[in-house]
C-alpha cells in the first residue's frame, strides 16, 4: 500500500475497522445483558414496569437500539470488505490481506449478531414478559 493518509485519518480508519469487526458483537452483548437482566429481575421482584416504563417498552428498547448498532457495524464492515479485496497474488501486501481477513470476520460476526438480536425480538413479540 503505497498511498499515505494523514495520521488522524489513519487512526480513524483503524478504529473503524475494529468497529466493523466487533461493533455487532458488542451491540448483541448489550442487548443480551440488558434484555435478560431487565426481564428476570423485574419479574422476580413482581414488577411489570421499570421506573414507570412498561417492561415491554424497556425490552423493546433493549432490542431496537442494539439492532441499530449492529446494523451500523454491518454497513461499515461491508464497506471495508469491498474496499479491501485482496490482490490476486497470495503474497500481496500482507497488511491489506490482514485487514481484509478482519473485515470478513467482522461481516459475518455482524450478521450473526443481528440475527440473534432479531431472534430475541421475535421472542419478545411472542412471549409476555413475565409469563413463566
Amino acid at each position: 500500500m503505497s498511498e499515505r493518509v494523514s495520521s488522524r485519518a489513519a487512526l480513524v480508519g483503524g478504529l473503524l475497522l475494529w468497529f466493523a469487526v466487533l461493533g455487532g458483537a458488542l451491540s448483541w452483548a448489550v442487548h443480551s445483558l440488558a434484555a435478560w437482566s431487565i426481564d428476570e429481575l423485574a419479574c422476580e421482584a413482581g414488577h411489570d414496569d421499570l421506573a414507570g416504563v412498561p417492561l415491554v417498552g424497556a425490552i423493546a428498547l433493549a432490542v431496537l437500539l442494539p439492532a441499530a448498532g449492529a446494523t451500523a457495524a454491518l454497513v461499515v464492515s461491508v464497506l471495508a470488505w469491498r474496499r479491501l479485496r485482496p490482490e490476486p497474488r497470495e503474497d500481496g501486501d500482507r497488511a491489506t490481506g490482514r485487514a481484509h481477513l478482519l473485515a470478513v470476520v467482522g461481516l459475518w460476526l455482524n450478521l450473526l449478531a443481528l440475527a440473534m438480536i432479531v431472534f430475541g425480538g421475535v421472542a419478545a413479540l411472542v412471549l409476555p414478559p413475565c409469563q413463566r
Partner: protein
Amino acid sequence: MTPADLRTALRPAGLVTEQPVGRSTAWWGVMLFIATEGTVFAALLGSYFYLRFQHGVPWPPDGIAQPDLRLPLVMTAVLVPSSLPVAWAEAGIRRGRRWQVRAGLLATLVMGGTFLGLQGMEYHENLREYTVTTNVYGSLFYVITTFHGAHVTVGLFMVCWLLAAAGRGGVSARRPEPVRVVAYYWHFVDAVWVAILFTVYLSPRL
C-alpha cells in the same frame, strides 16, 4: 473530524492502519491481567445488583441504615488523586529522573496507606451495626470492600518493591516497564474504587 477525513479513513490505506510502534510483552501481560481482574470485579458488582434487586425493598434490609457517605467520600478524595503521583513517576522514568520516581511512589504509598487506615475506621464504625454474617447485605458490603482493600494492599506491596528496585538502579529510562506495570495496576485499583463507590455507597440511595 470532517466528512473528508472519514472518506479518507475508509480508504484502504486508512483501514489497514497499525500502530507505528507495537506494545511490549510486559504491557500486554499486565493489561490482560487487569482485564481478568476487572472481570472479577464486574461479576462481583453484578452479583450485588442481582442480589439487591431480587431482594426487593427495603435495601439495606433488616433495619440497617443507608451507608454513611462522609467517610467514603474522604476515602475517594484520598485514593483517586493518588493516581497522579504515579503518573508523574512514570513520566519521570522516561526522562531518567530517578528522584521523581521515588518521590511519586512515596506520595502514592502515603495516600494508599491513608486510604487503608480510613477503611479500617469505617469498618470499626460499621461492625457495631452489622457484620459479614448478619445478612446478605453485610456479606456484600464487607466482601466487596475487603476484596478491593486487598488489591490496594497488593498495589502498595508493588510500590514498595519498586522503591527498593529503583534504589538499586534496576529501573532506568531504558527499562521503564516495572514502573509502567505498577502504574497501570494502580490506576486500575483506583478505577475500581469509583465503581465500588457508585455501587455500594451511592446506588442504594437511587
